[in-house]
């Protein structure tokens, strides 16, 4: 069954600005398909984003109210907008650097307050827009423009971070598994309170060409092959686990 997603797109758009092979287009499609399963009027939807490639998923592409904010501060803006008008279904869509590094404090405090928003974090493992610098989500050993010999620091486990901070639901899936991703976003949107979906959305331009391969399909295969279940993760030591993406749902 196909549905017309065009009604969610803003009039007069020239097309998205994403690089060829960027996962964010898939993620945008997943968000819209999840929203489409809800009974919410477009006028009651608010998308809030920060700065970076992922912040351009909603702004200007999605034809609802959109608030394209400052780097890191999407959740702080969303807090004011949602509290001042609680009838707004508020979705924060932004990148890993935006939400977990410069905006990390707002992320954990919004979860602590159980702010009634759904956060969708497009995790491309790197700073894309500024030229491939190391992020707080870059895997150990991955090469970046600021760590050409490989990153030495462990990445955040963002889902566990927000769950420990009080989130009601978190999930992690790669864009290579769109069905699970759509289901997870839908579930997050239906749960009242602070919910979080991390979409592993590899960046061919900045991450792929420095690491696995410049070939887009090979990059997607590589990411997908690193995905393991939480049960599988239990059997691994930390070093091995850090080379994988633990996918699935996290509930309190």
């Amino acid at each position, binding site marked *: 069954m196909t549905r017309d997603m065009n009604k969610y797109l803003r009039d007069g758009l020239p097309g998205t600005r994403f690089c060829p092979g960027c996962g964010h287009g898939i993620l945008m499609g997943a968000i819209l398909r999840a929203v489409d399963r809800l009974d919410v009027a477009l006028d009651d939807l608010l998308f809030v984003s920060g700065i970076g490639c992922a912040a351009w998923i909603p702004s200007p592409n999605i034809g609802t109210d959109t608030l394209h904010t*400052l780097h890191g501060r999407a959740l702080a803006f969303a807090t*004011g907008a949602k*509290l001042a008008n609680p009838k707004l279904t508020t979705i924060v869509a932004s990148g890993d650097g935006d939400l977990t590094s410069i905006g990390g404090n707002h992320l954990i405090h919004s979860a602590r307050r159980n702010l009634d928003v759904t956060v969708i974090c497009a995790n491309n493992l790197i700073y894309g827009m500024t030229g491939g610098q190391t992020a707080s989500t870059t895997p150990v050993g991955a090469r970046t423009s600021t760590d050409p010999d490989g990153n030495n620091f462990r990445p955040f486990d963002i889902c566990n971070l927000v769950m420990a901070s009080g989130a009601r639901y978190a999930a992690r899936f790669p864009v290579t598994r769109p069905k699970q991703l759509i289901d997870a976003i839908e579930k997050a949107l239906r749960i009242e309170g602070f919910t979080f979906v991390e979409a592993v959305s590899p960046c061919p331009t900045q991450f792929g060409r420095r690491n696995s391969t410049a070939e887009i399909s090979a990059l997607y295969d590589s990411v997908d092959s690193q995905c393991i279940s939480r049960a599988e993760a239990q059997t691994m030591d930390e070093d091995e686990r850090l080379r994988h993406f633990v996918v699935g749902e996290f509930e309190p």
Partner: protein
Amino acid sequence: MAGRKRVAETTEVLLQGNVAVAEAAIAVGCRFFGGYPITPSSEIMVRMAELLRADDGVFIQMEDELASICAVIGASWSGAKSMTATSGPGLSLMQEALGYAYFTETPLVLVDIQRAGPATGQATHVGQGDMMQFKYGSHGDVFPVALVPWSVQECYDLTIRAFNLSEKFRVPVFLAADEAVGHLRENVVLHRNFEVVDRIKEGAGDPFGSPLPDGVPIMPAFGDGGRLMVTGSTHDGRGFRKVDDPEIHDTLVTRLMRKTLDHVDEIVEVEEYMLDDAEIAFFAYGVSARSALAAAKRLRSKGVKAGLLRALTIWPFPEKQVTQLGARVKTIVVPELNKGMITGVARGFTGTPVHAFAQTNGKIIEPDSLVKFVEGLP
């Protein structure tokens, strides 16, 4: 503490300046406060917490000042008149978002209770060292509005005016108060004798553009069906990002400037004291203007023809008034609790000598030391 219950609208009561700010905000229709504790402004947030919760408004204590000002901007776009309050260190942290608020034409009121800086400085003692931050704290050209109260009554009256100007011009407005006025307790009348200005939500035109060179666009709220695109990047009238178009950027930056500068006659307020025959004039603002008025009276009693021009609006700067003052008097003295920030600005608008009485010891200026300073001038 007095005033947990609402007081009568005509009676003089004893209130602290900070509390009068909160009372005014509620009276003029503020429905959202986001803030973070900081001395010497915290009484404002405490009172706002009481008043907003009692009145179905929204009070939220955020995780830091960065978050506070951003929440205020978000709330303003959801249609609520919104405010935060802070002091110098918090104002420094808020600067990026203040530029955002200015560029997205978001009405809000920021109350700054200035303390002795820089850095942590002397948190409980007075300063006026943020005067340039209001105007020059943000990157890029910004032309916001800053009002300066000198009494508790003006903490009330100018907070109301700050909201009204903010709504009318869609611009962030500062209440540039200081610790001495914020913590002062005086007689105040919490009157309701004022006009309330609200942003225009509907009408012709786009939410981020105007055919007029100084025009203020309509501002629908989130949820009103406007499908708004709010962005801090350069944008066209509808809100589409236009980050490579030179003409759109220049047109936007220029219109935002003219929105306030073309209306200085409406925005700028000054008061004159004993200037008719004055030969020496103080040009002053905030608590320092009270020292100046006392000093001018003492100088008069000693036969010196002294007067005072007091700025109630410091940004946009009262350029015309300072030029006119320079033409009337032989000498101007600017007493201020910083190293001469406004003195330097005033010098740009008159050829008459402008002397700084710059005091940075965490205290307000004693009138006798101003008298002595004037008597010692050549």
